[in-house]
């Protein structure tokens, strides 16, 4: 009896707990009329990135104090440059971001360092998802696309419930577009 009743009950609970956003829902979201995507490439100079990297507390992009502001944009710019002398810092930072997301899961990046508005925090989280997708495409490392799936799924639920600001929505759409581009490139 418990086996007969157990199965449907389990699938109900699993459905309720499921974080995964179906691909059709993502497509609909991306194709909706008011779709506005953030600018593709943030204009950051190498000098800015180097100054930012030199001033990181303890050389870390994420710590107990929070996620360092501009991490996603700056690491993406640094990776685009492709200078061999930056590779060690880049890979260490990317691994620590990946580990943070995977270990803290929905509780990842609870705040920015220095503290900022909730909107800015969302923008930074979307930038990390964009960075992960692009890094996966550049290196073929699927672990980063895997983490981007999770970040985007968790954001979807929140954005569905609470309408985010326009810039935030535009950045999220960019994160989803980058995700789907990476899927096409690496998995399809």
């Amino acid at each position, binding site marked *: 009896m418990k*086996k007969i009743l*157990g199965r449907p009950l389990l699938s109900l609970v*699993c459905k309720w707990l499921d*974080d*995964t956003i179906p691909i059709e829902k993502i497509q609909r979201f991306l194709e909706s009329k008011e779709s506005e995507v953030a600018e593709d490439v943030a204009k950051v100079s190498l000098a800015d990135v180097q100054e930012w990297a030199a001033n990181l507390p303890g050389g870390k992009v994420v710590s107990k104090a929070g996620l360092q502001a501009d991490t996603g944009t700056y690491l993406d710019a640094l990776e685009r440059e492709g200078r061999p002398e930056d590779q060690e810092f880049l890979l260490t930072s990317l691994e620590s971001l990946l580990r943070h997301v995977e270990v803290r899961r929905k509780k990842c990046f609870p705040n920015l360092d220095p503290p900022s508005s909730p909107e800015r925090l969302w923008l930074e989280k979307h930038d990390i998802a964009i960075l992960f997708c692009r890094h996966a495409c550049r290196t073929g490392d*699927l672990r980063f696309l895997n983490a981007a799936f999770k970040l985007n799924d968790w954001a979807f639920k929140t954005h569905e419930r609470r309408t985010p600001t326009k810039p935030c929505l535009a950045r999220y759409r960019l994160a989803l577009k980058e995700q789907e581009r990476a899927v096409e490139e690496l998995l399809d």
Partner: protein
Amino acid sequence: MRVAILAPIKSSLYSRLVTHLAASEPGIEVVCIVVRTVWSIRRFRSDLHREGNRLLRKAYTRLVLSDEAADWGSSELLHSMARELNVPGTSLTDLAADYNIPLVEVKDHNDKVSENVLRDSKPDVIAFTGGGLIRENILNIPTRGILNCHMGILPEYRGMDVVEWPVIENRDGDPMLGLSLHFMDAGVDTGPILRQERIELQPGDTSESIRARMVPFMVTLMLDGIRGLRDGSITPEPQSLEAGKQYYVMHPRMVKYSEQRLSSR
């Protein structure tokens, strides 16, 4: 050589097989079995945080359908191995009574009760047969170390879902599938390696069928390791961490691609 067993639940067939074989082995004394209680809110919360709804499926198969239907525990190969080896009883309690081994139930393998029992038992080796992460206070107890059989090839594939990851990463070539027996340390699957076993893909394989084929090897590798340490015929080799990566729980969308790649081979 004194061996202690850490087990996830009393009915775990893998734990029972390892205990039975170790206890029947000359020159090896199983000094205690430390098994986690089925239910603990703290553990449930931390496992749910890590594994999401997969945990519920696991709990359902273990608690409602019993071990016989649990994903990889359901391996017919493992059950026939248990039948062939005449593993007594249906749980670790029966086995402990048969071999006169002290069995202690704990909320968590890292808690004070577990630590005290293990310290008092003075094991040379602890065979870890499942039950969460092991902390520093337990890692330091055995004189030789804690053995764990990881369902992946080390150092390349550390962490979670290491059956699915090699499949999705190797579109055309042979995925690096197999098992590694290693000593546990403070890192995730980073301790010295004692033995490895490669698993070849077979037509029609799914992740579940691969796992099912792996479980009997986990038992034999664990016993080979224990015997090797007893005889001094195994030298654990430290891992080169740069040679591998740590993998995390695979997103369901990625799992689908992994299954597709398996079915299209």
